[in-house]
């Protein structure tokens, strides 16, 4: 098992050190570890190239000598191998490290660790003063997050079972473009291949494991994909007027606008509030039960009264 490891390291060294392209036969002759028939050497080399690519190491294929046409050569350009964020100062190293540290113990701990190893290898001491009083932490135990990130970065289609409102698992295929964490949940946005449209999925509503499907680089991520914009539809579609009891309905007050109304009884305030999802809003209003009265629209008021009456019948 360490033969393979050794060979990968030796191949990297040879291809990185060379100033010109090395042909396959040169590689097989000089790099330690290529053994067996021509065919098996060939297969080994192909696998090694893939493995290095997965580590982010790009092997460049070029012409060894323009006179010898079909003898391709290989090398790794130092500029494609080395740390790509350029010159970084102590403050930047500290911030980058802190960002990676945020994943400690989360489902992507191993990528965080390798990132930290590289950042620390630069040899600039972190500015620990900077860290006082900060403990950014990424909260997730969901192993699917790692698969989602790797699908986006490698541009590989994802397939998964998604639970609908009836708790039925529907199989979906998605070209994932972006992901975000908000309201305490992780979401992935992409093109749903069956519905042929952009869709957003919440990771914790996926039943079982996310699976990579097909080959890497099988689609392009469109220019201007903006997952934040997809969430911040700024226009509220509907508005309602409600009365709230003194000091109650704190979450609602935060996003409502108080309105003056002479008929408002003592101990209550009147608000105008926007909402988008009707059913969710009805449920939210009922959470506050007798601390809240819907004033308008009449249909919403009637609906709340209807639920309360059927509750009386069922439980009374």
């Amino acid at each position, binding site marked *: 098992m360490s033969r393979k490891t050794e060979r990968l390291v030796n191949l990297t060294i040879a291809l990185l050190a060379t100033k010109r392209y090395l042909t396959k036969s040169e590689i097989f002759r000089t790099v330690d570890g290529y053994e067996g028939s021509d065919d098996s050497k060939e297969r080994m080399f192909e696998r090694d190239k893939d493995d290095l690519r997965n580590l982010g190491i790009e092997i460049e294929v070029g012409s060894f000598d323009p006179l010898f046409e079909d003898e391709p050569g290989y090398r790794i350009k130092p500029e494609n191998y080395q740390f790509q964020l350029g010159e970084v100062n102590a403050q930047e190293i500290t911030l980058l490290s*802190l960002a990676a540290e945020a994943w400690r113990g989360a489902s992507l701990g191993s990528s965080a660790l390798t990132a930290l190893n590289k950042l620390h290898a630069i040899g600039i001491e972190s500015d620990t003063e900077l860290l006082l009083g*900060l403990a950014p932490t990424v909260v997730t135990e969901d192993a699917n997050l790692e698969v989602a990130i790797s699908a986006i970065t490698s541009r590989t289609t994802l397939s998964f079972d998604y639970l609908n409102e009836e708790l039925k698992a529907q199989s979906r295929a998605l070209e994932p473009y972006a992901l975000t964490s908000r309201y305490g949940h992780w979401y992935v946005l992409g093109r749903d291949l069956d519905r042929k449209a952009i869709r957003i999925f919440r990771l914790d509503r996926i039943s079982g494991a996310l699976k990579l499907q097909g080959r890497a680089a099988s689609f392009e991520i469109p220019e201007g994909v903006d997952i934040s914009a997809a969430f911040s539809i700024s226009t509220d579609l509907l508005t309602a007027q409600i009365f709230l009891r003194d000091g109650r309905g704190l979450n609602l007050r935060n996003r409502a606008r108080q309105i003056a109304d002479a008929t408002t009884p003592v101990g209550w305030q009147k608000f105008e509030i926007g909402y988008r999802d009707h059913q969710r809003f009805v449920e939210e209003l009922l959470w506050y039960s007798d601390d809240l009265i819907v004033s308008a629209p009449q249909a919403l008021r009637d609906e709340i009264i209807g639920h309360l009456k059927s509750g009386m019948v069922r439980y009374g």
Partner: protein
Amino acid sequence: MVKSQATPVEKAARLLDLVPYISTHQGIALADLATEFGVSQAELLSDLNTLWMCGLPGYTPLELIDLEFESGYVSIRNAEVLQRVRLLTKQELVIILLGLDILYTSLDGSRADLQAAVAKLTDKIKKIVGNIATALPIVDSAHRATIALAIKSRRDLDLVYHSTIRDSVTERSITPLELSLDLGFEVLYAYCQSAQGFRTFRLDNIKSVTLGESSISVPSGEEGSDFQWDILVRSRFRTSAERFRTNFIPRESLESESFVVTSFSQDWLLRSAMCTLASVEVQRPPEARAMIADKCRKTLELYESPALPS
């Protein structure tokens, strides 16, 4: 044979990263190096022994990487080719990008210089990987840092806490015990000196937190008993399951589904039942049903009261 869980490829990646790290930390103790790379010392020794066999084609001592670690301290020579720090993979860049987002929101306005530095790094990384990942944390990381410090140093905390269940903001003095996750949300388990009982606080509902006195003793003994309600869901299954925080499993077809819901807070159960009047029926216990009926009646009375106009 050293037992190792890393694949040969992962091991190769680690070897490539060990070289620049040792180069900038010549003479580092084996134990420290093992900690940095998250491996056992045995595994690290196996790594170093493998690395020793690597080098430029030719593989004579002139070309091989020269490592010294028998003294228990590691130094390296003749490894110029691999001395450069390797580039960050896209996966690593994405997690750093998300980490920077979270860091950015935890910096307040008084640290505008740091905010600018974070924004600059974020831009740099987005130029490489694209605008493919963002995070909007719901917990203030300064709160988390204060809580962690309090647990470590056995101090009490003064909280300003917004209880969504009680629909009120209160000040409490608590003895913090443990940070953990509850269905994806960060929670603090603590003894609430104000309420004289064990409570769970959601970190995203903490308005402010300050270090208090050294911890007063926490009574041992039983926690307050949980309330347990049996519910029957008839529609809006996923929403209702999420609201009652029960685990849901996929079904072929569903007409109704029974759950048992437990909580230390009867108030939370009651409010959740009110929310879901249209889709959920609470079946047991009878006291729960009576409470819901009472709540419905009180609310209906308001709608019928002449004192409250529409």
